[in-house]
């Protein structure tokens, strides 16, 4: 688990959990959050099993903070994002946490399946830095400033 504190503005920083097996992607997200000046803490887990353990405070994630937002990759080892999504959305306590599926797949089935499993939105990763920065800024603007999220 890596946690990076970014700018803390007025309130406590937003807790973001990123389930992603590619460390380069996590690092990129970290950089983009910093560039977009999102007051947040980014935590990352490398596979689906650890994502569930984190959300349920199991094992080494005993004192993990409940995330305000989850960025979920679809293709991960051990347990993939689809399965994590189904599991979380079937859990009466965890399902309130907004989950944004972030993947490189633009396949129609993946998109439909994700929404069928109650993903809160589906975003395609971009190889273009400018586009990625825009995505992060949009996520921040909507989820952290426009939308009201439950306290817990």
């Amino acid at each position, binding site marked *: 688990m890596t946690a990076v504190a970014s700018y803390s503005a007025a309130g406590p920083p937003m807790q973001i959990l990123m389930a992603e097996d590619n460390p380069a992607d996590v690092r*990129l997200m970290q950089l983009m959050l910093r560039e977009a000046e999102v007051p947040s803490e980014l935590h990352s887990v490398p596979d689906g099993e650890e994502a569930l353990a984190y959300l349920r405070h199991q094992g080494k994630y005993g004192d993990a903070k409940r995330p305000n937002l989850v960025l979920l990759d679809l293709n991960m080892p051990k347990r993939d994002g689809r399965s994590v999504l189904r599991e979380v959305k079937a859990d009466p306590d965890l399902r309130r946490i907004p989950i944004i599926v972030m993947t*490189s*797949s633009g*396949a129609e089935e993946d998109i439909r399946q994700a929404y069928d499993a109650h993903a809160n939105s589906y975003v395609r990763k971009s*190889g*273009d*830095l400018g586009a*990625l920065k825009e995505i992060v800024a949009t996520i921040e603007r909507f989820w952290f400033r426009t939308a009201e999220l439950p306290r817990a």
Partner: protein
Amino acid sequence: MRWINFRDAWLLAGWFLAIATAALVAWTFLQTPLSDPLGNTTQFLRLLRAVFVVLLVLVFTALLVIGIRRAQRGEEESRLLLDLGKSSLILADGSGRIQYVTRGAADLLRYPKESLVGKPVASLAAPDSAGAIAGLFAAPGNGGSLTTTELTGLRSDGTRVHLEATAERSTVHGAPVLGVLLRDLSERDELVQALTERGAQLTRSNRDLEQFAYVASHDLQEPLRMVSSYTQLVAQRYKDRPVDREGEEFLGYAQEGAGRMKEMIDNLLAYSRLETRGRPFAPVPMEEVFDRAVSNLQEAIRTAGAQVSRGPLPTIVGDATQLVQLLQNLIANAIKFRGPQPPKVEVTAEAAGSDWRFTVKDNGIGIAEENRERIFVIFQRLHSREEYPGSGIGLSTCKKVVERHGGRIWVESDGVPGAGTRFLFTLPAEGRAVRTRSTDSDPTPAKASSEVARTLIESRLSELI
């Protein structure tokens, strides 16, 4: 016609008999007294009567011989023709015994032709086909429809052969007969099996292709995204340092390469999805397709000062989205590869048998003879990126769309630079989907190719039959 043939012993005997009878009759008549109306018996009248009777007998015999010869000849001719035609025919009597077989039937069952006459028909079929044979004999009689059944024939050497028997019951001179036409199905069976195997192969290779498309979309894109993101990041960071001029140049090439590769992967994915994400076919007015293609190209048409026109276009059965893509790619191509004068593109259609033949004609740079096949191959480009940008996928997409609709596409050009190009493609007037699969309802890739296989088998079989 030779009606006296002394080589036939029976004919000779017949003639002998006839002459003998005539002689006997003549002699008898000569002995019998005969009176003229006045009651005088004359030698002359008796002679005249005898000669008349003899002539009568001879003429009668001659007519009989001619008749028999004619019938015999006709029968021999038809047997010869039946044997020549290799038809496998069997004629059986009411008790099921063979009366006549053609050489074709004898060869099919590997019997000497003569040995089959008198044999029960049932002895030529495997025991498990007894029911089928009985069915033939129970078929409706005179004027009734033909009965067709499949059965296993038993050859003289004990081997089995898959047969189709078509039979009709009839009567000849009041006696019941059964005519049976046999057809060897083993060749068809082999073909069906070969095509089924080919179909299974197609299914496998289609699945492999789909798998490849998936790999291209997910697994290749991931590392590529890393390359392009981080080269951009490095470029951004070190942009303002003068010592790194060369480094900046290198990074530029790396970024450009990554960008091009991304475009190719995206295109490849779109290309492979033409097949798997195609919509079900429906009637599509090609004039609307033309309008949509032109409106999508509005910007390019305006920039190039192009003039795009059309003749009357028919309605065909197909996938509207893909047909727009087809026309759009061809028109865009015509505008892109333009000559010095403003581009002129004309789309026309004419009926060609059961197809519509479309022509997209331009006044552009033309295509040399040797490149006319190559241009349809994916990622093949004839020009450098600087001359004409593009990924080399447009025409292969066109080809795939046309083929998916059961047509074909080719190019004609007079070969003289500047003479223009004509792209021609056919689309079936009735809509003949080579492969159809709906977008969402069917996620299994295997089904499409088994449909292809079935279509293939059906069309090949209809040719064969």
